[in-house]
């Protein structure tokens, strides 16, 4: 029990140090660090994807691979739930 407490306290301390660093080093609100990619997406969305909705163009076009992973997560969630609950019949 004592060992587990010590290990847990150490892990918590490491996480707390990283969180403190992230609080100190975070960008101030409204001033992002690298804006090249944002500007590119804002100016080229209508020409390259033909969409007025920039968010959808990022989700399905510029970052389509991310959405593929999201769909995979949903698929595996459905597969897992059906694996557990499908055998139950009255």
């Amino acid at each position: 029990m004592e060992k587990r407490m010590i290990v847990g306290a150490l892990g918590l301390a490491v996480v707390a140090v990283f969180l403190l660093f992230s609080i100190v080093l975070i960008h101030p609100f409204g001033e992002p660090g690298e804006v090249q990619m944002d500007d590119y997406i804002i100016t080229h969305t209508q020409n390259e994807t033909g969409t007025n909705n920039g968010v959808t163009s990022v989700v399905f076009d510029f970052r389509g691979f991310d959405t593929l992973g999201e769909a995979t997560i949903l698929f595996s969630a459905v597969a897992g739930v059906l694996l557990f609950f499908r055998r139950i019949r009255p």
Partner: protein
Amino acid sequence: MSEMTKIVKTTANILFPFTMIFGLYVIAHGHLTPGGGFQGGAIVVSGCALLLVAYGSSWVFDRIKDKRLVTFESMGAIGFIMLAFLGLVFSAVFFGNFLAGSGTLFGTTPATGSTLADFNTGGILPLMNFAVGLKVIAGLFVIVLVMAYASSAKEWG
């Protein structure tokens, strides 16, 4: 989950079509207004969950087969992947938007700047919204349906 009183059923009957229309609108206009396949699918499934609560899970389970819902979910996933590979075939990039600016289906390019919404824009984005919407509707509804049915079953085995 057993069925509830007549008041709840009547309220669900009134609210269900509006929820369906709103969810399908959010899916269909995903490339013009905020929202998209995931969000609109979640709205549609919330309407189906309302039906599930009001009428009981065995009532819904008698009318909708979970195998069919799983087939729809796989169809949505296959459509999404097929669109991505069609982008690989026609524009040499995985997830390439080969329909944008082509002048055919969803091929109109809007003018730069703030313009009026034209439904015939976006290239493959509306098609991907439809595929993801189908996938989310079927997937989330089969999760809700099967879990509600399992919670109402008498014995486990």
